[in-house]
């Protein structure tokens, strides 16, 4: 049974048709790669699923229910999380603070609720351990490398117990060692029954970890096939238009 189903999703901005008739589905525990050149509509599609704005046409269902999100918080409470390309982190806060932003842990002092810094840092360190990341929970994000910032962003989705995690270019700005670890983590998400939509330009990463690949060009889906039945050459052709559809 599909977790996410898109039927005929379309989005237009005045004269620009950013998306036309996009339909595909993602099953629980499935990892789908979303590929396409700049301007293909990948970010727009992710924003619609993430609840940033509703589509101009088409319908969407998540977890068996028809949904039409008007705000990101609605998508999040349904179980959809996004790791943005710029990671949406507050530089002036620590890693633990960023992970728990909006869902802080508290301690009670009689009638007053105060932040439980120790518990948050401990849980954050635990999450970083699971991610096998060299990130310290109390460090400021401002002082972190690209890979560590990525770990903070991914740890945040782990905390939310999302059912669908959408990742926008997660391996674009991290170290070689961490690419392997992020891909391994994505594999672990699959084992936990979490679905992942991976937007990526990096063909080797998509072919290593994804079960299926959806290719978009100029706002339309031109291919939706399992990785085993495709090849990097075919996907490249689909992206550029050398191959019309597959």
């Amino acid at each position: 049974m599909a977790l996410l189903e898109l039927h005929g999703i379309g989005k237009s901005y005045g004269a620009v048709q950013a998306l036309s008739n996009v339909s595909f589905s993602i099953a629980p525990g499935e990892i789908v790669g979303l590929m396409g050149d700049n301007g293909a509509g990948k970010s727009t599609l992710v924003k619609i699923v993430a609840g940033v704005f509703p589509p101009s046409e088409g319908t969407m269902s998540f977890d068996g229910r028809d949904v039409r999100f008007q705000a990101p918080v609605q998508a999040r409470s349904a179980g959809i999380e996004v790791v943005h390309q710029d990671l949406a982190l507050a530089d002036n806060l620590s890693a633990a603070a960023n992970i728990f932003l909006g869902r802080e842990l508290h301690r009670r002092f009689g009638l007053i609720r105060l932040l439980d810094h120790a518990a948050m840092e401990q849980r954050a360190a635990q999450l970083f351990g699971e991610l096998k990341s060299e990130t310290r929970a109390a460090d400021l994000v401002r002082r972190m490398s690209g890979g560590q910032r990525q770990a903070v962003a991914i740890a945040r989705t782990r905390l939310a117990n999302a059912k669908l995690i959408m990742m926008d270019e997660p391996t674009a700005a991290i170290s070689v060692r961490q690419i392997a670890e992020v891909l391994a983590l994505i594999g672990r998400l699959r084992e936990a029954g979490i679905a992942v939509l991976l937007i990526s330009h990096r063909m080797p990463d998509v072919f290593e970890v994804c079960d299926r690949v959806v290719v978009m060009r100029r706002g339309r889906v031109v291919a939706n096939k399992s990785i085993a039945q495709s090849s990097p050459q075919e996907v490249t052709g689909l992206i550029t238009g050398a191959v019309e559809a597959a």
Partner: protein
Amino acid sequence: MSDFTNVRPVSWHARGGLTSQTAYVALALVLLSLVMSAVSPAFLTIGNLSNVLTNFSYLGIAALGSTVVIITGGIDLSVGSSMAFSAIITALLFRSLGNTALVDIPGAVMTLSVFGGLAAGGLIGLVNGLFIARVGLAPFVTTLGMLSVVRGLCYALTSGQGVNINGADSNLFFRLSDGVLFGVPVPLVYLVGLALLMGLLLHHTAQGRYVFAIGGNERAAALTGVPVTRIKIGVYVISGLSAAVAGILLGGWLGSVPANLADGYELHIIAASVIGGANLAGGAGGPLGAIVGSALIEVIRNGLVLARVNTYWQDSFVGTIIIAAVCVDRLRSRLGR
């Protein structure tokens, strides 16, 4: 796994707290105080120190609220006018409630008058907050407009004349606003209490964290579910309330509230916050910085008076310190790279 082999522990003097702007300014404050006590024997007398501590408390209390706004990346130029407006409302309430049956209840006139003044300050903050957070106007322009609107109200309400605080409960009010508690001027007690409260709220509550998050990356804060609009309105209300406290205490010290109370004070308040380490771009600042910044400004003013420098030079000196402080901050971050 975690083997940062090319990173050694940071030495104590290069660690976060001691390299912050606030620490530098605190150091400057100590050095300046030493210099002044050497140059002028009058500096370290009880009378002079008491004056300095009292005067800087008003600035410090208003700077606490101003700092919270600056942390979110905003600014509140209306604080000087709010101080005056709140003080005038309090004084006017003393006058009108003093003619009613409430005089028979001890403390009632004072309590209601002070509450009225605080409410006035909070209301100005609420109006600022609504325009800035709901309507989306720029903080600078909005609060600049409110500065004039409120100052005009001050003149209109008083017809340009001072409002005396006298009658029922006025002595009680003066004791609570201009008295001495265990040898410490009362305004300083309020400053320390409010600073501790603000530190607690900023560093140990979720809402305080949201204030920093909004200043650091407002978009990220909104995306992660931080109630940005509500927090932004809240910080302007806090700014208005702290200005109200400062204004009412100042009225208690003067005994009479002129329409031009704290005229132009907003620049000193913002200067105190910025010198103390609040970054105008948002994301950084704290109550300790507000206190240290206010103390530095007041100590400099006091020093200029004791050195018998022409009072007209005071503004130039304070302005020079502001520029020097941000230069030091720039040098500091460059050295840290």
